């Protein structure tokens, strides 16, 4: 097991190097001199000249590349042009917020998707199955940002106009906390945060949940046909044990690989959803940075996004090995 993890870790290294290189190439493929991207109203020409020298932009390209590599590997992501502080410290604030949002969505996606997939497989061809399949089709064809806007429209602005609408089901339209957050008690703070998480995490996760449900259904149907399920039934186990113990664990195997596939998708969605909900995460950061032409920040953020995907894939692989004994002992 340990050997397996170490092997996967080692395999990830060239990938990370490649990602750094790709970002470098993108920067240099931009039209004009690479320094052109640092031309910014708030940056004086002298500073740019200074940068040129510091970063060795007048050196040959391979030297520049090595410097670039060194600075990324040492965790020096440069300085934001608009905020005048190290990008590392900006992202250190933002990454946790993105992780909170994506993490919540991820839990939602897999919990709901798997549960619905099981129900659909067990009741294959029932009206319930058909209804859920149809709804899923519509749900995963929805743009997340539009769904976010619709949720805001209904649950933040319109629903509470109805007399009977419970106040607890009116959700804030933006931000991570209320204005009076600092005055709240410990539990109050947690409640406030959760309250703010509801709409964005639904907007972000519901499409993927529909697609997980779809995969889970087919995976479950595949597993239910297997010989070992018949063996389990022949043992006299109750149907619930057959499904939740014998079928579920096997059906989950292909779903775990989806975890790694969904994360990039989820982060893409996070860019839009954070923008819609004014959620101070990395997605919001990169969108703002683009509109303010803060290119070093854009590059660094997209690099960190890619690194997070690589890490997530690693975790998915390891999780797979934990669940599937056949890999563990290879």
């Amino acid at each position: 097991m340990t050997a397996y993890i170490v092997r996967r870790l080692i395999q990830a290294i060239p990938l990370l190097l490649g990602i750094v290189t790709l970002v470098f190439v993108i920067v240099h493929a931009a039209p004009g001199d690479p320094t052109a991207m640092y031309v910014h109203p708030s940056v004086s020409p002298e500073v740019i000249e200074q940068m040129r020298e510091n970063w060795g932009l007048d050196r040959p390209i391979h030297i520049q590349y090595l410097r670039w590599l060194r600075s990324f590997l040492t965790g020096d992501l440069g300085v934001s042009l608009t905020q005048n502080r190290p990008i590392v410290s900006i992202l250190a604030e933002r990454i946790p917020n993105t992780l909170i949002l994506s993490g919540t969505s991820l839990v939602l996606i897999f919990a709901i998707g798997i549960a619905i997939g099981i129900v659909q497989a067990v009741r294959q061809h029932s009206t319930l199955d058909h209804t859920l399949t149809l709804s899923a089709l519509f749900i995963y064809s929805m743009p997340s940002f539009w769904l976010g806007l619709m949720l805001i429209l209904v649950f933040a602005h319109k629903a509470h106009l109805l007399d009977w609408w419970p106040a607890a089901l009116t959700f804030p339209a933006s931000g991570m906390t209320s204005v009076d957050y600092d005055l709240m008690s410990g539990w109050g703070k947690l409640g406030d945060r959760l309250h703010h998480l509801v709409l964005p995490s639904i907007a972000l996760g519901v499409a993927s949940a529909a697609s997980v449900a779809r995969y889970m259904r087919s995976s479950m149907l595949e597993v239910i046909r297997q010989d070992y399920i018949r063996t389990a039934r022949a043992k006299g186990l109750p149907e619930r044990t057959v499904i939740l113990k014998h079928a579920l664990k096997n059906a989950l195997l292909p779903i775990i690989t989806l975890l790694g596939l969904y994360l990039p998708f989820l982060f893409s969605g996070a860019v839009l959803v954070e923008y819609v909900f004014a959620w101070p995460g990395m997605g919001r950061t990169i969108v703002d940075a683009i509109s303010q032409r803060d290119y070093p920040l854009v590059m660094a953020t997209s690099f960190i996004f890619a690194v997070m995907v690589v890490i997530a894939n690693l975790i998915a692989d390891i999780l797979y090995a934990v669940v599937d004994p056949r890999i563990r002992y290879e």
Partner: protein
Amino acid sequence: MNEASGRAEDRADGGRALTAAAFIPGLAHLRRGRRRAGLSLLGLALAMLAVLAFSFDRVASTFTAGRVDYWVAMLTLAGTLAAAWGVSLRAEWGRPRQRAEGTSQWAIAWREFNRNRVAVLGLFLMCGLYLATLLAPYLTSYEPNAIGDIAATRHLPPSLDHLMGTDKFGRDVFTRVLYGARISLSIGFVAVSISVTLGTVVGAVSGYFGGAVDTVLMRFVDMLISFPRLVLLITVIALFEPSIFTVIVVLGLTLWPATARIVRGEVLSLREREFVEAARALGLASPRIIFRHIVPNVLGPVIVAATLGLGNIILIEAGLSFLGLSVQPPTPSWGNIIDGGREYLVQAWWVSTFPGLAIVVTVVAFNLIGDGLRDALDPRLRI
């Protein structure tokens, strides 16, 4: 009734039916019991005639307005009517089409696809959408970008005059959604063509040659796939000026890895098959083997990926427009109409709502077709 007399009656009837069928598209098919083909031809012709009748003044103004839009619409209208007529007449006079014919892979797939009712529904939806975008100038009396008396027309709720209301500049949202469809659909179409072509070539080369070529290409694919799509896209687009052209090129150049992986997998299994071995033994050049023998065989999965990819790309493009990184206002695209309505979401909910619904319907249509194609072309992938 006995069969012989029935047929005789049929023949006697033939003369009258022939004249009727010549005037009413679809009748010939209906008479032959091909209900779906008949009804869709009939519906199509009726729809075109309805457009002609209800917006006659706009059709007439084609000749005075002098805009390409109007001419495109005119051609579409006339072309569709003529096509419906032609197909109908061919069914009546042409040589009787053989029904059970076609055992080629594609004929079988087409029959399989036709049996899938929701997939056919998706196909109809898609054709309807394309027709609607082409006929846009005839379907609405407003101009997409014309700003009139803002005070009087601003934020009007949906009504018969403005099916989807008006936006903050008093522009008709229905018109903008209709014209926006053109942008979204064509960007999707071109970008998918680029990325699928690129993906097929890279996948085929990688799978066919294997070894170092394969390793390098696939590591590159791994790298591209590590970036969340939208992040990669906005990062690259941010370095250029956002425009339709940039968006199409960047979408086309960044979305191919998925296709490449599929094609590579197919090629790896094909490579070992007899006909490829035979071609190699004959000493055929590699490019020839790849394009003549391998690519045609992976076309099925590629078409499926392309159709499902179209839905996906429309969603991505909408996201880019929403962030202001694609088509720039005032040119409408679904994403930027939604973005435009965001500011006044509460006062004028319709501005952001309807374009979103248009996206959902379009993407559903492509997904239905894609699923249907997958079941028809590649039963192994059925889920």
